[in-house]
């Protein structure tokens, strides 16, 4: 055995014992989470490079090739009521839906984290007011609130992302508030305070890094929710507006052709279910890996 491999083996031993390694192993052994991760990567890859490989453009109309069935002829997944290629549209729609899901998550997590941290750190009147506000927003059924907000703005990718984020930040705020409130009693936080560190430093440099695990879990689950919510508003006609395709608005017209062209309804719905369940599986696996105690049972 050479010195190098000996060191490597020794290093591996230390690594194996470390918490980080055990977390990673719990995660990679979670079959559903791995399935979710692979599907998400494939979806992202397909939506990123796929459209340039499909020989049709998503907007290209062809009145002579309407309602072509999938797996028969030039159009792999068939065509819609205007003769547009379904595969090209599904992939371009995926870009929109996944992007909205991701961006809405970033905004929701940022807002939720800031509100939760401030509420958890200061407690008292500020904390109560903030958390009561969170409770109140949670009283509104999500779709009702989302549609009301959608009716107040002009529909577009940016506005839809923003209003989805506005209806999804509350749970992060609750999680973070609980964590921060517990953490601030711990010795290291008390010590930092005693040393005269400014509040902002304690909140964001001392406490928040210790609350990352539940935030990551919540973030993954919020992407799933955001993709689902985008499909709801777009299906109901207040989200992404045609001709730009999103998985939700592709289903808007599908109902009237359900008898003659069921694939128009089937395919986008399958994509949504696949993407959303993959993120849910991933979030579930992350929760089990990052915090083994929190398993539902």
């Amino acid at each position, binding site marked *: 055995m050479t010195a190098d491999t000996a060191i490597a083996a020794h290093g591996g031993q230390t690594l194996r014992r470390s918490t980080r390694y055990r977390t990673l192993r719990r995660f990679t052994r979670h079959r559903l989470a791995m399935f979710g991760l692979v599907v998400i990567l494939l979806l992202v890859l397909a939506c990123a490079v796929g459209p340039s490989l499909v020989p049709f453009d998503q907007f290209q109309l062809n009145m002579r090739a309407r309602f072509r069935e999938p797996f028969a002829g030039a159009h792999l997944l068939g065509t819609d009521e205007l003769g547009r290629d379904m595969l090209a549209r599904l992939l371009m729609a995926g870009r929109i839906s996944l992007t909205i899901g991701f961006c809405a998550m970033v905004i929701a997590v940022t807002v939720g984290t800031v509100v939760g941290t401030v509420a958890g750190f200061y407690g008292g009147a500020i904390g109560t007011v903030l958390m009561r506000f969170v409770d109140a927003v949670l009283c509104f059924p999500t779709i009702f609130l989302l549609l*009301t907000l959608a009716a107040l703005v002009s529909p577009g990718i940016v506005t839809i992302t923003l209003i989805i984020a506005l209806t999804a930040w509350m749970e992060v705020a609750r999680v973070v508030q609980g964590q921060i409130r517990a953490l601030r009693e711990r010795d290291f936080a008390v010590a930092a305070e005693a040393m005269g560190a400014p509040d902002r430093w304690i909140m964001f440099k001392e406490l928040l890094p210790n609350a990352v695990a539940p935030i990551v879990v919540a973030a993954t689950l919020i992407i799933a929710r955001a993709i689902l919510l985008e499909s709801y508003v777009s*299906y109901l006609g207040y989200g992404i507006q045609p001709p730009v395709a999103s998985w939700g608005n592709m289903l808007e017209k599908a109902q009237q052709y359900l008898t003659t062209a069921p694939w128009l309804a089937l395919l986008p719905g399958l994509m949504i279910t696949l993407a*959303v369940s993959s993120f849910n599986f991933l979030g579930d696996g992350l929760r089990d890996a990052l915090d083994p105690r929190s398993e539902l049972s």
Partner: protein
Amino acid sequence: MSGFLLRRLAQSIVLLWIVSMIGFALLHLTPGGPLSQFTNTPGMTDEDLQRLTAQMGLDRPLPVQYLEWFGRLLTGDWGRSYRDDTPVLLVIGSRLGATLQLMVTATLIAVLVGGFIGVVGAVRRYSFFDQLVTVGAMIALSIPTFWFGLMVIYVFSVKLGWLPPGNISPVGNESLIVFLHHLIGPSMVLGLVTTAIWSRFMRSSMLDVINQDYVRTARAKGVSERIVLVRHVLRNALLPMITIAGLEVPTLLSGALVTETVFTWPGMGRLFLDSIGYRDYPVVMGLLTFTAILVIIGNLLADVLYVVADPRIRLQ
């Protein structure tokens, strides 16, 4: 117990108050604000608008306006629909029944099917069945409700012809059988998500109880496994589920909106969507506030029922 109930009641009132403020803020964010009905009317001059503003008291400070609005909210004067000038509460009331029918049947499905799945999953923990329904529940929570509705219509109405593709019941034929026949599809669709949630919570609630000392005692005494499971475990595991039923109200309301759209069911959800289409803001804001109040009442009721059902909480 009365202390607990009073505290919960006070919390609910605070929530209601914040909800009303959010509702008021959203009303003023609508294009044109409370005057939107008139700004869109042709032939309106600026002077007319100013006169109306003064008439409706919209030139007063916002806090004053809010107090007046909140007062009207409490006395049941929720404004009138732009579309037909009917009082908002009457419009909502006429649609409430249809939505409640869906919500109640969906909850029944969730309690029976979800409850059963949860119980079996807990008793046969980590079995093939348990793992299958765990994955199944997560997928069910990932399916867009409206798409599931489309698939149900396709399979059961278009292909098999078993169920009507929508609507509450045809005009002129309003017998109970026809109504129930129309109810099956939408309740199935609305019940999917709640069933999944119920199966998860039922399972974990059962597992909590199964490990209790008194269950072990019962088994040690030689009580048959059936009686242990039904009398000792299930009865106690069902108690926390009352809370879950209360917490499910917002999910059910959101689901009802989508389900009613797919099945053209004449409930609050469709009313809400139609009102948004017509920019009928008094009805939109009324429904938004109304559903939030339903949610608050649902949570409060669940807490009260839980205390009534579980004497241990009364002692604490």
